[in-house]
């Protein structure tokens, strides 16, 4: 099994750390993993993205043009990465701030209102874990217990008391991801 994922959004949304937790979770189930961040001027301008690969075999290229899954968290990333999903692949996005919704009909598209649920939970920092939960519902590539192990590894010990909160956020994400149907516009004269 190989899962290739691009996660893209604004700096501060937890894009890179979400990728890191996913990579750690893969390690916890003895998979090969790679985590390739954008670190260039684009990142300094506010957008961030990371390519994560989980595989049972040796990973060749850590840098990809076409992926199985794209998790998209702002409009710029939608413009850039909607075309990166392979036919039959998955696109997950948070509709908050999205003005041009995805339009492809050859992929599966899901919406998760991460921003709204995070603000309802009263903790903006938990946003990326809600998104991660949604992703894991659609693509259960790592087991929840391995995600918890991964969390323990990727956050410092003094924050381990926050792990239940993270698990709660993942659960909210899992319960609230919904399929999005692309409506093909009908033009009338």
């Amino acid at each position: 099994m190989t899962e290739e994922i691009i996660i893209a959004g604004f700096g501060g949304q937890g894009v890179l750390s979400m990728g890191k937790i996913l990579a750690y979770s893969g390690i916890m189930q003895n998979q090969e993993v790679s985590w390739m961040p954008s670190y260039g001027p684009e990142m300094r301008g506010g957008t961030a993205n990371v390519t994560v690969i989980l595989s049972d075999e040796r990973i060749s290229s850590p840098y990809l043009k076409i992926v199985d899954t794209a998790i998209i968290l702002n409009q710029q990333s939608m413009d850039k990465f909607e075309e990166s999903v392979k036919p039959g692949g998955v696109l997950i996005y948070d509709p908050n701030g999205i003005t041009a919704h995805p339009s492809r009909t050859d992929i599966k598209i899901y919406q998760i209102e991460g921003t709204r649920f995070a603000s309802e939970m009263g903790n903006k920092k938990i946003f990326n874990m809600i998104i991660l939960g949604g992703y894991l519902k659609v693509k259960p590539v790592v087991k929840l217990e391995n995600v918890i192990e991964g969390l323990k590894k990727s956050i410092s010990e003094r924050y381990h008391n926050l792990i239940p909160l993270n698990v709660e956020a993942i659960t909210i994400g899992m319960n609230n991801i919904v399929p999005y149907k692309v409506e093909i516009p009908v033009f009338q004269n």
Partner: protein
Amino acid sequence: MSELKLMKGNEALAEAAIRAGVDGYFGYPITPQTEIIEYLMAERPELRTGMVVLQAESEIAAINMVYGAASTGKKAMTSSSSPGISLKLEGISYLAGAELPAVIVNVVRGGPGLGTIQPSQADYFQSVKGGGHGDYKLYVLAPASVQEMADFVEDAFDIAFKYRAPALILSDGLIGQMMEKVVLKPQKPRMTNEELIEKSGDWAVTGKKGRERNIITSLDLQSEKMEARVRRLMKKYEQMEKEDLRFEKINCDDAEYLIVAYGSSARISQKAVELGRAKGIKVGLLRPITLFPYPKKALFDLADQVKGILSVELNAGQMVEDVRLSVEFKVPVEHFGRTGGIIHTPEEILEALEQKIIKNGSIRHHKTRESSIL
């Protein structure tokens, strides 16, 4: 005890340096290699092994600190990225001339000039064709994974001490910044003074006691002596070619076409090989692990088997010259690469192979050769 971790290439290299028992690191920050000095500063190896970590006032100061530390037989290293390495070249030439063991790390970014902070392999010429002045070469290791970033630190020091010559780890922004699983070796103790004298006492400046003095210099005003020194260096390089050449062949057994690529390009090319094989194209990959010495013979032999070779590099065409020299025009050799910090995708590489080699596979004279830059 060995340990499994998820680390950035730069961090893995820094941790491996501590564990390899390195005595001193002297550096200066520059993207995309700053995590090396950052990690070492945060880790405080002076408390773990007594290793010195020092941020110098400049790249030039750092390489000269390496020269000083290496003169005493200690394991000394520095790291930088392209513009910083250009500044260090004078010092690197002096290290080679004075026959000092040291390790230099270059996490390459795009150039020329200040260029860009994103990945590139445009320092190939600088690394394998001298770079600094005079008749010298560096032993050049090109890691293609985070694991190799860690492993090559000790390998580079082994070579540096075996030959009393500087060794270079030529990485790039992609390998430096990405995270992968890495198995870290157990901690090795630093050399004690007694061990150091035992190992390097015949040449190093260890404090003269009951012996002739050892002099470290790269200056020889007597021409005969200087020529003897140059000959001695050339002997070392010959021996490196015989004993310490490293490369990897992937899917080469039945290959009709060949991609040659090192470091990050080799990783991306491997995916291109997978995509090509899925389409029924019998393509293999030769990955030079050492860029000097270069796998000339392996390429010469493969040229009898394959119909054409594509050299894939994140530059405007540098290693391709060595590929052509190696195969002696037995088969067509073309270059493909992106520059400016853009990373080529596996799909682009496969397309270049199809267009430049499979479709257009004849040896072209330089007069008819189109530009190889995308």
